[in-house]
């Protein structure tokens, strides 16, 4: 393990132990926060009971669908803007101010459009994530060195072949960043949507447990969610590091 990794782990461990000690010493009201050991026990119980399996699968399914649509749609939008510079110039101010708009306000509209089911939540996750992918795709395409495009022509590649075999691998670091943001934003969009607007999913169950002062369930679900998202993030981080090292970018 690297020195930085060791320090990072140490900080997390100290925070957990500190919280554990503070809770047991009565410095923190158990109505507010329960000890991390109780959170872990609650999470384990929830996991093996199977009580929330359907909610977990619903949430993960919605996030996966929102992320897949955002990656595909964002890539298409970014590529379209790259190919149509006039359209890009026209849309630039809208893209730049996109994240100033609270997208959750569109939830009623999505219910009207898609009905009372999971699709409005998927739509929230999608609209929250899609522009991050589009902007990263556009930036990636713009940063491809012109000499690689000329090389594609010198090697007599057709336009689709050049796109798949040269342009996309060349801008892969930007696409990868876009995918990472899409996953994070899809989680935020779907969970936050469930939290305030849905009758199912992990977000809803966390909100339900909170409203009923059921701290072990609330913190257990939060821990499960954090564990899953952190695990996914670490996996992406490890893959990204390997990918960047290969290209001499680290």
């Amino acid at each position, binding site marked *: 393990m690297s020195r930085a990794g060791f320090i990072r782990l140490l900080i997390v461990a100290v925070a957990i132990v500190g919280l554990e000690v503070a809770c047991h010493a009565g410095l923190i009201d158990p109505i507010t926060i329960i000890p991390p050991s109780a959170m872990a026990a609650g999470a384990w119980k929830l996991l093996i009971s199977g009580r929330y399996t359907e909610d977990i699968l619903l949430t993960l399914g919605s996030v996966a669908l929102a992320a897949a649509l955002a990656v595909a749609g964002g890539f298409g939008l970014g590529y379209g803007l790259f190919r149509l510079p006039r359209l890009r110039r026209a849309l630039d101010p809208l893209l730049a101010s996109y994240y100033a708009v609270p997208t959750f306000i569109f939830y009623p509209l999505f219910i009207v459009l898609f009905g009372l089911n999971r699709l409005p939540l998927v739509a929230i996750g999608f609209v929250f994530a899609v522009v991050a992918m589009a902007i990263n795709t556009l930036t990636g395409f713009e940063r491809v060195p012109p*000499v*690689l495009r*000329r*090389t594609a*022509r*010198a090697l007599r590649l057709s336009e689709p072949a050049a796109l798949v075999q040269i342009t996309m691998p*060349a801008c892969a670091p930007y696409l990868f960043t876009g995918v990472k943001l899409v996953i994070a934003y899809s989680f935020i969009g779907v969970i936050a949507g469930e939290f305030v607007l849905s009758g199912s999913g992990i977000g809803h169950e966390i909100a339900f447990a909170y409203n009923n002062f059921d701290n072990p369930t609330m913190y257990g679900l939060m821990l499960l969610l954090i564990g899953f998202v952190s695990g996914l993030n670490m996996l992406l981080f490890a893959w990204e590091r390997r990918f960047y090292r290969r290209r*001499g970018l680290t």
Partner: protein
Amino acid sequence: MSVAAKGPHASLRGVTRVYPAVEDHPPVHALGPVDLDLRPGEFFSVVGPSGCGKSTLLDVLAGLAPVSAGSVAFEGRAVAGEVPEGIGVVFQEDASFPWLTVWDNAAFALRRAAVSESVVSERVDHALSFMGLAGFASAYPAQLSGGMRQRLCIARTLVTRPRLLLLDEPFGALDQQTRLLMGDELLRIWRETGATVLLITHALDEAAMLSDRVGVMSARPGLLIEIVETRWPRDRDSTIVSRPEFGEVTGRLWARLRGESLKALELTGVGRGGMEIVR
């Protein structure tokens, strides 16, 4: 080589290239009219002041850029719209693919050409060993020096066995010693492959050392104002720079080029400010 009736390997007839107006910028007459015949198997270099259209000349010959007037032919067939089979191009900038290993970089064009895997292996192994990269086959370009990456780009082009090799200042980013050594490598490739080579360079000594003939271009719009024959033996290398004739060739090139370089400086406005141009 299938050059029709022993004619020129490639030719340009009245080739002109004008870049169209873009928004507030007026059209730019970059090149021509230029007439040039490349003889089969010769080493031809083009020198000229900065911005004179040397790279544009290479682009139109390769089919990477359209001509505004005139015609380009390679092995008797018109070049238009795309790079013909048989032409290989190496650029000044690093054009290696950072996501592929050295071996896969070199194999890239052959795999596209649906060549059998055994032929790919044979040609790639040979090209990498020829370019001194055999020990780096599984490395990535990021692990190579600038000179090695440029050799990799040359290897990637060589495996396709081009009959006409177009080189756009391929050693421009290298130091002088490495350039001389790379020049020796290039001469070896030229001798062993029998390809016709067109080299674009701004280095007079490089052009004088490597070439059978050197074309001198004027300031923009680029015209071929003189073609200097070096009369070097085919079996030559960088030691030629110590011969008295080398100085004569370089001197002749510079005598023709000096005035054009001054014109180019005036065109770009360099001579109007703090720098005094001595005529």
